């Protein structure tokens, strides 16, 4: 019997509520900010949520991040690294019908007003995925530009695992292509497993949760989370068919494979913002 897409999606979602866990591959660490291409510096409100962005949940509890920082670049000046942990505050985030520990950060304009690129980096505490008896740690990156002056958006950040952009992550048209290199220890990872998800629900920073209706409905579960492999040089190309935020994750590419005696997947996540031509 052919199940209509809506019902198959709903069924899968409903099953997710009963299953001990969803597959680890469906997890995405978000580092949400409403706008990544700013004309002038502004106060920025970030939501740090470990979730399933296409389905709008369920959300997994986060522990206090190991680090949350910003590297700011200007032509002719040394990069400036700012520790942002003091701006973090624990919250509960609603997604997929349940609430889970997450973090919010209010970054004042004075900190992120300088012309150029500001690379936000999050190193979360490894998350124990009990259903699979393994840890997941997703090093996550978002790049915010101020004033349209490009600077260090393509720079690597010396993370254990990282997605190095080859296109500016904050300036992409709907229908465009985004390219990046998957790195582990600064070295490209040939044929790295990459997953791509669309942030399919509105993010409500005041209610602290996902809201509204899904932007798109997947015709088949495989469309909810797109899978690809990097090429022999670790380069991945991602199509961007809809405006909004797209998450790109390279899975299990880290050197650290064990945490507290259990298997660990160290993943790299990069978020890319897309806008319509109007």
């Amino acid at each position: 019997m052919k199940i209509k897409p809506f019902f198959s999606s709903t069924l899968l979602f409903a099953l997710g509520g009963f299953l001990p866990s969803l597959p680890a591959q469906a997890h995405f660490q978000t580092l949400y900010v409403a706008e990544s291409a700013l004309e002038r510096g502004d106060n920025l409100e970030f939501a740090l949520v470990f979730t399933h962005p296409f389905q709008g949940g369920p959300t997994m509890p986060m522990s206090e991040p190991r680090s949350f920082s910003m590297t700011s670049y200007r032509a002719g000046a040394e990069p400036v690294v700012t520790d942002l942990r003091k701006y973090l505050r624990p919250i509960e985030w609603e997604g997929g019908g349940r609430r889970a520990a997450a973090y919010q950060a209010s970054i004042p304009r004075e900190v992120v007003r300088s012309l150029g690129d500001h690379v936000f980096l999050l190193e979360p505490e490894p998350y124990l995925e009990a259903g699979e008896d393994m840890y997941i740690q997703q090093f996550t990156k978002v790049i915010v530009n101020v004033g349209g002056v490009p600077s260090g958006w393509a720079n690597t950040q010396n993370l254990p695992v990282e997605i190095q952009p080859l296109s500016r992550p904050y300036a992409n048209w709907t229908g465009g292509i985004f390219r990046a290199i998957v790195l582990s220890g600064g070295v490209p990872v040939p044929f790295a497993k990459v997953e791509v998800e669309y942030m399919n629900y509105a993010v409500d920073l005041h209610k602290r949760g996902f809201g509204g209706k899904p932007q798109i409905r997947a015709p088949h579960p495989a469309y909810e989370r797109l899978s690809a492999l990097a090429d022999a040089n670790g380069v991945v190309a991602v199509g961007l068919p809809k405006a909004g935020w797209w998450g790109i994750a390279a899975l299990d590419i880290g050197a650290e494979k064990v945490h507290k005696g259990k298997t660990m997947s160290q993943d790299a996540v990069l978020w890319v913002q897309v806008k319509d031509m109007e």
Partner: protein
Amino acid sequence: MKEKSHMERIVIVRWVSAAALLAPCAAAWAHAPVLDCYIEPDKVHCEAGFSDGSSAAGRPVKVLDAQNKVLLEGKLDQAGVFEFKPPPEAYHVTFVGGDHHEVTLYSSNFSK
């Protein structure tokens, strides 16, 4: 007021773009000048750059009053920064990024 100043900047940049298209040796549009200024406790901090990411180091900056009288002139430092003590009256700052490459911001549009 903020919107007005923002539009002024857009007008200036678009004029520069049009001029570049008409020039016999057209300057690349991707090299548009960008300027922003912030008020700090005892000074005004201005930063300048170009939309292609190239450095604005050494480029001239002018501070002018409402009658376009030059109050202060200087050059951007290595990091594209120019700082000055704000005059008591309304003023504006112009970053001269090259031939037909100017951008101006008005003090009413500055904030912290």
